């Protein structure tokens, strides 16, 4: 199955048509597209229902130390030729960049790894099936006398990348996602799940949990701001850690904008924290190659609390090897995390996986039982960076925050604002859950555990 007739062969033909147009210098063609359908409901009925189909061809040219990119969704010869000429014009007028590397060869880029990320049944789902899933969630709300709002979405996407040095990459995958907010008079509950296969997404089950959270948090009490032991459910962990990922890059270190400045190789997190980047993990999604076509390598970002490795594009790795960082990163190499060139931020680690030894993991129920007084947090909201070096983040709790007393979940509490350093937070993790694929709203999906953290700082309380 392909979206608007696009498959690996047709993408290769587009690349050949660009080559026939006679690019000046080296050329790279990235093709991205797919279909994304989303059914949205509120007040227990469907309010929005969309199906989007698109395909974009992005052409990069490189002539000496100059490179530029132009993209188009006009796939005819004229559209491609126009984009190619625009890219050439943008590149030609630049000053030469002595640090710009030639395009990667197929040998240097590494052998292709195929990932099984495509599910025919998910790709085949239509509006009626999505409506049925939405109705299943709404039915729970009606049964419980709650007001529901949420989404059920499916999609399929593809990504191809070719260059004049022989690199040829292709990836396709499907996705399904359900998200639900249950609202009562003065409380709410939320859940979200995302998977490559729709059969793995339990929309009704999510609705049941969200409904239970809304019921249990009714008539919330106000607790004073201050430091609390918190149990962060995986969605809350995902949304905090996503901000930290941007610091684990070589370019951020070269530009001295990373919280790891002067901290790489040091024990800056707790010994119970191990975080890797691994696109091949069963809970992960996405292509196995980067924006230049280099195959992704697994990274030990944090090993038992020590910041070890960072993501690097080819260009960043070369610059690191020539910089003062070479003594700290002696084996700097392209890790397969580069972004499409040219770009501002170099590279990104986006397949994060927490590692927790089986015997060490605790269930959320066990964490609650071990907490004399604390807060259980379902999700966080509107997180922003307050301080770049200490990685202080601010944000709000939302849709299900509970007081824990004497090892039991008690009343719901009014939502609180936090101002918490994430580096410090990862020094104060008391317990970790079993890592599983989890979704938030402020970051990309990752394989993350629930966490019990002591001394988590809340600074204000809101009105609900």
């Amino acid at each position: 199955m392909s979206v608007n007739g696009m498959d690996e062969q047709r993408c290769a033909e587009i690349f050949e048509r660009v080559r026939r147009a006679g690019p000046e210098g080296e050329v790279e063609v990235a093709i991205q597209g797919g279909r994304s359908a989303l059914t949205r409901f509120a007040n227990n009925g469907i309010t929005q229902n969309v199906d989007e189909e698109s395909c974009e061809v992005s052409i990069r040219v490189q002539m000496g130390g100059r490179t530029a990119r132009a993209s188009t969704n006009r796939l005819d010869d004229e559209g491609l030729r126009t984009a190619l000429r625009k890219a050439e014009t943008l590149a030609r007028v630049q000053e030469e960049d002595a640090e710009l590397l030639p395009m990667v060869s197929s040998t240097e880029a590494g052998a292709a790894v195929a990932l099984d990320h495509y599910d025919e049944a998910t790709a085949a789902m239509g509006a009626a099936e999505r409506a049925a899933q939405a109705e299943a969630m709404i039915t729970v709300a009606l049964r419980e006398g709650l007001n529901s709002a949420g989404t059920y979405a499916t999609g399929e996407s593809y990504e191809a990348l070719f260059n004049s040095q022989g690199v040829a990459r292709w990836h396709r995958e499907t996705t399904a996602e359900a998200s639900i907010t249950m609202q009562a008079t003065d409380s709410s509950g939320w859940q979200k799940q995302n998977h490559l296969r729709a059969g793995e997404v339990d929309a009704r089950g999510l609705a049941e949990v969200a409904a239970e959270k809304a019921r249990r948090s009714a008539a919330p009490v106000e607790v004073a701001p201050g430091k609390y032991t918190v149990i962060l459910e995986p969605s809350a962990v995902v949304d905090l850690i996503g901000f930290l990922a941007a610091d684990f890059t070589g370019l951020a270190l070269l530009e001295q904008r990373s919280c790891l400045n002067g901290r790489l190789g040091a024990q800056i997190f707790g010994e119970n924290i191990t975080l890797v980047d691994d696109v091949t993990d069963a809970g992960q999604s996405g292509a196995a190659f980067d924006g230049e076509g280099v195959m992704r390598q697994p990274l030990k970002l944090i090993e038992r609390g020590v910041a070890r490795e960072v993501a690097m594009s080819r260009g960043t790795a070369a610059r690191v090897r020539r910089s003062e960082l070479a003594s700290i990163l002696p084996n700097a190499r392209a890790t397969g995390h580069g972004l499409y060139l040219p770009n501002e931020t170099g590279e990104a680690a986006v397949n994060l996986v927490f590692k927790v030894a089986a015997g060490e993991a605790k269930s959320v129920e066990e964490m609650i039982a071990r907490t004399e007084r604390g807060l259980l947090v379902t999700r966080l909201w509107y997180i922003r960076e307050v301080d770049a070096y200490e990685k202080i983040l601010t944000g709000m709790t939302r849709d299900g925050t509970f007081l824990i007393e004497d090892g039991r979940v008690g009343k719901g509490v009014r939502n609180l604002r936090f101002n918490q350093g994430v580096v410090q937070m990862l020094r104060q993790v008391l317990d970790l859950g079993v890592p599983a694929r989890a979704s938030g709203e402020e970051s990309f999906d990752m394989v993350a555990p629930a966490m019990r953290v002591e001394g988590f700082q809340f600074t204000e309380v809101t009105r609900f």
Partner: protein
Amino acid sequence: MKQIGEWALAAATARGATLAEARIVHERTRQLGTRNGRVSVAGEGESIGLGVRVLCHGGWGFAATQELTREGVERCAALAVEIARASAGVQREPVRLLPEPAAVAEWSSPCRIDPFAVPVEESLELLRKIDRTLTAVEGVTLAEAGMSFRRHEQWFYSSEGADIHQTRVTTGAGFAAHAFEGDSIQTRSYPNSFGGQHQNKGYELVHELQLLANAERVARECVELLKAPQCPEGRRDLILDGSQLGLQIHESIGHPIELDRVLGYEANFAGTSFLTLDKLHNLQYGSELVNVVADARPEHGPGLGTYAYDDEGVAAQQVPIITAGRFEGYLSSRDTAARIGRARSGGHLRAENWLRVPIVRMSNVSILPSEKPMSFADLVASTDDGIYMQTNRSWSIDDKRYNFQFGCEAAWEIKGGKLGRMLRNPSYSGITTEFWNSMEAICDRREWTLWGTPNCGKGQPEQGMGTGHGAAPARFKQVKIGGAYGE
């Protein structure tokens, strides 16, 4: 384009759509950027496609395609109807739309210098000069400069007879200096953070911003911040510069007045609003000095929320939001306005591009300047003990838009009506209505600027949108300061 529109409308109505809209968008973009002397962004983009929105049996359906052949367009329209039928089966009540005259119109935003006609080398040379000026200041560890241009041309046709052709040209430009030392990373940006200033203008905006003339000062302030004392914690009188006040308006007025949020449509993502329907015409939102309008009309200025018609064909209007402090209006669309018994939509339904369905968005949500003379110097001179904050660094607000916290790049003490020493890491926080009721002074039109927010996120699937916010420096009484770093 009209032929494409007719294919879509005919195919949709033949399949039972009671309303069909075809929106064709052709967009061109250019981004240029430098970073520590290297070209970091050099890109062009072009995109053309069709979005078809239909009502069938009282349910909404939307489909989008870039295949603009007759077959592709008709398939897209048929899919939109199929989706609408599925929606209608899971609805509590059918969608009802307020009537709107079918407009036939042409409009283009004023653009004196076509940014796509400006030689790329001219733009890059300016960015390089800015970069060199920033990095020449000792202590600057990262210099960023950039420009972005967008031409958005749209044809809108509806089964009600609308035929509207609009073109908007948008320009953005700005730079930032960063400095790292010890345990501190500091940033100063100009003329605003996160990409600078953005307006519906051509390349003339780049000239007006005087980027190069401000580069050395901004870089020196960035390095100075490394040694500046920490902004203290406590309650102080607070003066905000115009760009920060623009973002304050965006977050604590612009979003809560969106009627789709109020009605619960955004409950699962962007959130709801504390502005429940009982508060309309009753809530004292701010002090009597607070007058806010949502104004999409071209005469309001070249804001990112300026247009002639919204994306369901409703004419641009000026909607009173807060008048002498009292809450008077929402941002609305034909269906949301019908839900609360209004006579007409406010004209606020907008889509990011052809691929996305239009949703309720801000136009230009602006605070009106003082009618009495008040310069910035007057504002400072009339402040005995306070803090002046400039340029946003962080922003966060709860999902009903009550509790907010903002961080700024730099602050200065005010003592006895004079600006004093610089302070680093300033932040302030509060509750929306308490904050706006504490506003005790605002500068006049000489200090008023229509700021652009190019990246407002909302909706599922999430859409980015440009919004405008006219603002002038203003003073607020006894605001909570410094909580972001407090214990």
